[in-house]
């Protein structure tokens, strides 16, 4: 179910392209903001919550998820080099699962770990805020990677579609329509953060059992469907 060669090609493709700059720029920005706030504002739980919830989890994690998830397969399908993967006796679901593992690895490493460090910088993990948001970022990374990998498999405009989902659906509709919050990866991740953090440190709109069920369902469903799409992917050629 995991192919080391597919993983190596994916990993090098992801970090070798220009868009990889976004992957490193956002966590760097988070760490700079956190360090500056600590120096000028001092250790403060509200500031930590605002930065980790408002920037790290709401913006940085989905953006990194978009770049890593769609970038794990989209460019290969766009330029046709995926033909070298498809012309091999390797199961399509193995290709997708391997790419998902790489996308999750990159997203977790570049979002959850910086979130944890930023949390310690901001308030020294008071009320477990740093750990809670880092865990939320990690679990959100899994779901985002699966969703955006699927988008990279089904559409050539995966980055745009991913950004619309991450920014318009999760942020805009999430703040306007209560129902949209139930169908938001961010809220599912916050449910986990709420459980880990001290009482009242983090609030979520969805209960943990529902959140975990939806997270697993979306991740498994998106991954299965991406594998299915890859099995029936047509290469139209130059004509």
């Amino acid at each position, binding site marked *: 179910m995991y*192919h*080391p*060669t*597919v993983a*190596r*090609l994916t990993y*090098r*493709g992801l970090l*070798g*392209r220009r868009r990889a700059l976004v992957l490193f720029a956002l966590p760097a920005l988070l760490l700079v903001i956190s360090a500056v706030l600590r120096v000028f504002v001092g250790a403060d739980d509200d500031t930590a919550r605002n930065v980790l919830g408002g920037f790290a989890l709401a913006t940085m994690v989905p953006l990194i998820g978009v770049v890593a998830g769609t970038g794990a397969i989209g460019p290969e399908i766009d*330029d*046709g*080099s995926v*033909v*070298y*993967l*498809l*012309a*091999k*006796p*390797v*199961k*399509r679901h193995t290709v997708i699962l391997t790419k998902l593992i790489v996308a999750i690895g990159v997203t977790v490493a570049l979002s959850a770990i910086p979130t944890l460090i930023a949390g310690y910088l901001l308030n020294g993990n008071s009320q477990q805020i740093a750990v809670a948001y880092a865990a939320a970022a990690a679990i959100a990374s899994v779901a985002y990677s699966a969703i955006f990998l699927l988008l990279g498999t089904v559409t050539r405009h995966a980055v745009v579609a991913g950004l619309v989902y991450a920014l318009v659906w999760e942020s805009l509709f999430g703040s306007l329509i209560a129902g949209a919050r139930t169908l938001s990866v961010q809220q599912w991740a916050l449910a986990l953060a709420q459980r880990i953090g001290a009482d009242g440190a983090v609030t979520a709109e969805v209960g943990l059992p529902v959140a975990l069920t939806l997270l697993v369902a979306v991740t498994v469903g998106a991954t299965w469907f991406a594998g299915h799409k890859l*099995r*029936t*992917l*047509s*290469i*139209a*050629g*130059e*004509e």
Partner: protein
Amino acid sequence: MTTLTIDNVSRWFGNVVAVNDISMTVGPGITGLLGPNGAGKSTLINMMGGFLAPSTGTVTLDGQVVWRNEQVYRRIGVVPEREAMYDFLTGREFVLANAELHGLGAKEAQRALATVEMEYAQNRRIDTYSKGMRQRVKMASALVHDPSVLLLDEPFNGMDPRQRMQLMELLRGMGAEGRTVLFSSHILEEVEQLAAHIEVVVAGRHAASGDFRKIRRLMTDRPHRYVVRSSDDRALAAALIADPSTSGIEVDVKEGALRVQAVDFDRFTALLPRVARAHGIRLFTVSPADESLESVFSYLVAA
């Protein structure tokens, strides 16, 4: 001995029919798939390679359906026309990755690189390669698992004459070993040099199949049309129509030219200057009106 069978295959994209009810069998040896650009050759090769589902009909490899069957790639090697190929890797890394995806290793990758004579540049990144070098590395990636079927889409595009000769030699060797090699081309001479057996595709239809020489003769023997301008069109017309090598002449007064249809190509081309000279007529223009590959091919469809 592996045989690829295309059975009543059609493929359409929306309202456009790219491949129209084609049946053919590709057996051991070299087969040239000839047709003008846009004839449906790539679509056909993509279906043979299992990268595209036929809208109707089936493509089978020794009885096994090719579409959605990744196990066929143990026996098929594919050289796609597209350029993109993990440009951030070196040639060696690329061929090794292809070997590993087949469950093979560095030994097989090295052998394939040696076969295409690319060992000298194997440690350079692919994005620094010339088109011919890229083509050879693509070949190496397709040969790494020693396939019994090799499908190549326009393999000679962008190659210089020396590289072309080299690749032809390689393919001849593979054909002689009993492998099934199919390559597409829109250049008659390319196919002529390499394949004794050809399949001609025009506008999505299977126009001709068989021995190259027979098909070449069909192409030469078709009626040829010429536009001729001379110092005395009417006198020339009268003299030409008396010979059985022409089947029709129109005096186009508006254009000031003759439109000649010749049925015997060799005889007519010898006759025209002779007749003109005998009658003291000066020839200003003699130009073929339908020498494009497309019109040659469309004649084959009608034949």
